[in-house]
């Protein structure tokens, strides 16, 4: 029974990481690639670590797994935000079929603060 649960959770974790990989190839724009990559891999890694923690039912392993998942979820959006901001400042264009762009002329030319 535990094997069934662990197997299915690990399967879904690997599936989401595969989705992230396919998404990076298919998306036509830097911003879209970044958003797909960081979010899907965070969830996939979280599920894989959860399966790992359930399989070895020791207390120290479970505590470490919970802390690792928490740290990944805190730091991944911060890095995505910084990369997105750097991409926008170095004038990387959005995809040409984009709907709206509210961040057009908001940056100062010298110090890059809006």
């Amino acid at each position, binding site marked *: 029974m535990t094997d069934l649960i662990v197997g299915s959770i690990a399967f879904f974790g690997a*599936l*989401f990481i595969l*989705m992230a990989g*396919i*998404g990076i190839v*298919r998306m*036509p*724009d830097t*911003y*879209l690639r*970044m*958003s*797909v990559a*960081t*979010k*899907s891999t*965070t*969830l996939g890694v979280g599920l894989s670590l959860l399966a790992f923690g359930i399989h070895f039912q020791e*207390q120290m392993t479970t505590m470490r797994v919970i802390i690792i998942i928490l740290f990944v*979820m*805190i730091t*991944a*959006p*911060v890095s*995505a*935000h910084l990369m*997105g*901001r750097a991409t*926008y400042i170095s004038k990387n264009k*959005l*995809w040409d*079929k*984009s*709907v*709206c*762009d*509210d*961040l057009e002329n*908001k940056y100062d030319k010298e110090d890059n*603060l*809006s």
Partner: protein
Amino acid sequence: MVRQFLLNVILMLVWVLLTGAFTLADFTFGFLLSYGILWLVSRLAKDEGKRYFVVVPKSIMLILFFLKELVKANLHVAYEVITPGLRIKPGIVAVPLDVTGSYEILLLTNLISLTPGTFCVDVSKDRKTLYVHEMYVGNKEEYIKNIKNGFEKRILEITQK
């Protein structure tokens, strides 16, 4: 609120010392039991004494809501990636902010960035606007309303004095 939390911890320690078992399950059960007792006692208190018992269930509800949104949006993006032909309509949307403190903006930004399809590009200098890059911009006002009703309302409930 700190006082209530310290009382909770002290009662949990009293329970653990009385039963004599020091496993994690006993600590958790002692914490829940003392939370229940203190909640029953706090029904007579004024409003500041009751805040602890309002904040803790709302935080748990926020975590559960966030997990549901995460899984739902990930399935949506996975479906989008597999099927041929792109149905995305990306764009950068300026969302006006209601939360003001640094920690609340950090929490809102992290929560928005972790639901796939969206991530925050920048916060304006006077911290009143958040620029979010979103994959399915159907209608701009509707998207802004969704974010304000979903995430921001819950964060404001937790952190409002």
